[in-house]
C-alpha cells in the first residue's frame, strides 16, 4: 500500500469522524449568524415568522438606523460598558483575593475551594431569585436585618431604585443603585471562574522564586508585588478579555434580576425587548449584529495578541 493512499484513507476517515460535529456547528452557529445578518437587513415583525416574507429580497439599513437613532441607545451602550467593565474587574479582583487566601496549605482548604465554586455551578434562575429575595425592600432579610440593627434608617430597594443619594460626612454622592447591585451580583457569581484560573497559575509558580527572594530579605508584601503579581499578568489580562466578552453579551443575569428596569438596560436586553416588546424582529437582529461586531473585534484582539487561556 502506498503512503499516499494511506494518507488519503486517513483523511477520509477523519472527515467522517468529524462530520457530525461540523454539521451541528454549521447548523446551529454558522448558519444562524449569516441568517441573522439577512434578517437584520429586512423589515421583519414577530407576525411575519410563519410566512414567506422572510425570504423576500427587500434589504435596507432601516433596522440599523432605528437601533442607532434610538434616543436611549447611548445610555444603553454606556450602561452596558459600565456593567461589563465593572462586573469583569470585580469578579477578577474577588477571584484573585480568594485564590490568594486559599493558596497556602491549611486544614479545610479543599472544602473551602469547593464552596467557593458554588455560585458559578448553581443555576442562574435559582441564584438570581434568591438574591432578589434577600435584597427585597419589604421581605428581604438584608434590609430588615440592617434596619432592625440600626445599620440603615430605611430599607433600600437595591434592585428597583435607579439612583441612591448618599450623604457621607457632608459630601453628597449619587450612585446608580440598581446597576451597582447588578454589578455586585456579577462579581459574586463569576469570581469562581477567575479564582480557578488564578489558583492554577499560582500553584505553577516555582517555590525557588520565593526562597531566593526571602534570602535576599524581601518581605511578604514585597514578594507579592515583585514575584506573584508579575507572574499573574498574563492570566489576569486573558481573564479580563474573556470576562469582558461574556459579560458584554450577558442576558440571563440582568433579565432575571431587574428585567432591565431602573437604569440596568444593557444591549442584550435590547435584543429581547425589540423582539418581544415591540415585536420588531428586524431591529432585534440588528442589535444582535452590533453585539456580534463587538465580539468579532475582541476575538480579533485575542488572536492578534495570541493570548491563550489553556493548552
Amino acid at each position: 500500500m502506498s503512503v499516499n493512499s494511506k494518507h488519503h484513507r486517513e483523511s477520509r476517515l477523519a472527515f467522517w469522524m468529524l462530520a457530525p460535529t461540523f454539521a451541528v456547528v454549521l447548523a446551529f452557529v454558522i448558519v444562524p449568524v449569516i441568517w441573522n445578518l439577512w434578517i437584520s437587513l429586512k423589515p421583519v415583525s414577530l407576525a411575519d415568522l410563519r410566512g414567506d416574507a422572510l425570504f423576500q429580497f427587500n434589504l435596507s439599513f432601516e433596522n440599523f438606523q432605528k437601533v442607532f437613532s434610538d434616543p436611549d441607545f447611548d445610555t444603553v451602550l454606556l450602561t452596558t460598558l459600565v456593567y461589563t467593565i465593572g462586573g469583569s474587574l470585580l469578579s477578577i479582583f474577588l477571584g484573585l483575593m480568594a485564590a490568594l487566601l486559599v493558596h497556602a496549605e491549611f486544614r479545610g482548604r479543599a472544602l473551602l475551594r469547593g464552596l467557593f465554586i458554588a455560585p458559578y455551578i448553581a443555576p442562574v434562575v435559582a441564584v438570581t431569585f434568591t438574591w432578589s429575595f434577600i435584597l427585597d425592600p419589604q421581605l428581604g432579610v438584608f434590609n430588615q436585618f440592617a434596619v432592625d440593627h440600626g445599620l440603615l434608617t430605611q430599607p433600600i430597594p437595591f434592585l428597583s431604585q435607579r439612583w441612591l443619594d448618599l450623604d457621607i460626612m457632608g459630601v453628597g454622592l449619587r450612585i446608580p443603585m440598581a446597576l451597582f447591585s447588578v454589578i455586585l451580583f456579577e462579581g459574586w457569581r463569576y469570581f469562581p471562574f477567575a479564582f480557578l484560573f488564578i489558583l492554577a497559575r499560582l500553584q505553577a509558580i516555582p517555590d525557588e522564586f520565593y526562597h531566593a527572594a526571602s534570602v535576599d530579605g524581601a518581605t511578604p508584601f514585597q514578594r507579592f508585588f515583585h514575584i506573584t503579581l508579575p507572574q499573574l499578568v498574563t492570566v489576569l489580562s486573558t481573564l479580563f478579555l474573556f470576562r469582558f466578552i461574556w459579560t458584554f453579551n450577558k442576558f440571563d443575569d440582568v433579565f432575571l434580576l431587574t428585567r432591565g428596569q431602573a437604569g440596568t438596560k444593557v444591549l442584550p436586553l435590547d435584543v429581547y425587548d425589540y423582539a418581544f416588546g415591540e415585536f420588531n424582529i428586524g431591529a432585534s437582529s440588528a442589535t444582535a449584529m452590533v453585539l456580534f461586531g463587538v465580539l468579532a473585534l475582541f476575538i480579533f484582539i485575542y488572536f492578534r495578541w495570541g493570548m491563550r487561556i489553556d493548552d
Partner: protein
Amino acid sequence: MTREALERSIIRLIRIAGILFFAVIVAFPFYWMIVSSLRPLEEILMNPANLGLDFRKIDLSAYYDVLFDHGFIRYILNSLYVSIITVALSLTLATVGGYAVTRLRFRGQSFMSYSILIIYMFPAIVLVIPLYVIFSHMGFRDSINVLILVYLAQTLPVALYMLRSYFKTLPLEMENAGLIDGCSRFGVIWRIIIPLSAPALASVALYTFMIAWNEFLFAFMFLDTPDKFTLSRGVVQLAGSVHLSKQLVMAASVLVTLPILLLFLFFERYLVRGMTSGAMKG
C-alpha cells in the same frame, strides 16, 4: 518586631477575615434559599430578619405544592431527559472527533482548533433570535428535542477540545499494538482510548450535564407548552405566577440547585480540572 514578622501577622489577620468574608457571602444565599423554602409565608412576612431556622416549625408543604400542583415532577423529568441525552450525544461525538483530530492526519487541523476556540467564545444571545426565527418558521421551535440539538451545539466544540487535549497525553504504543492486531479504529477507541480516558470523560460529562441542566435563555425563548418545560423554565414560570409566595419560589430553586451542587460535590476533582481546561463559559 521585624518587618517580616509584622507583615506576617498582618497577613494572618487578613487571611482569617478574608476567608470568613468569602465563606459568608458564598454560603449565605444557599443557606437562605433552603431556610426560606422550609418556612411558611406568615413566618416570612412577620419576621423577615430571623436568621435561624426553628426545627419545630419546619414546613415541607412548599415542596409538595411545587412538585404536585405546579408540575415540577414533569419539569424534573424533562430536565433529566434533556441533560442526559445531551451528555450522551456530546460525549460520543466528541470522543470520535477528538480521536480523529489527535490520531489521524488531515488538512486543516490547526484551523479546527481555532474555530473551536471561536465557538467557545460565542454568546447565546447572538444566536437565539436567528434560531428562534428559523424554528418558528419551520414550526418546531416548541420542542424539547430541538433544545437538545441547541445544547449539543453549545457543548460539543468544547467537549471535543477538552478530549483532544487529553488524548494527546495518552501513549501511542498500546493503540499501535491494537491496530497491528487487527483492531479497527473504532475498536481502538472502544477498547483502549475510552478506558484510559475515564477521568477526562467524566469531567466532560459533568460539564455538559451542567450546561444543559442550568441553561435558561433557549429554554425560556423556545418552550411554550408547560408539559415541555425544563426546570429552569419552570422556576421562571412559577416565579411569575405566584409572585408573593417566596416559599414556593425558594423551594423550586432548591429543587433545581440541589442536584447540580450534589453532583458537583461528589465529583469536585473532575470538575475543577474540566473548568481550567476550558470547560466553562458564561
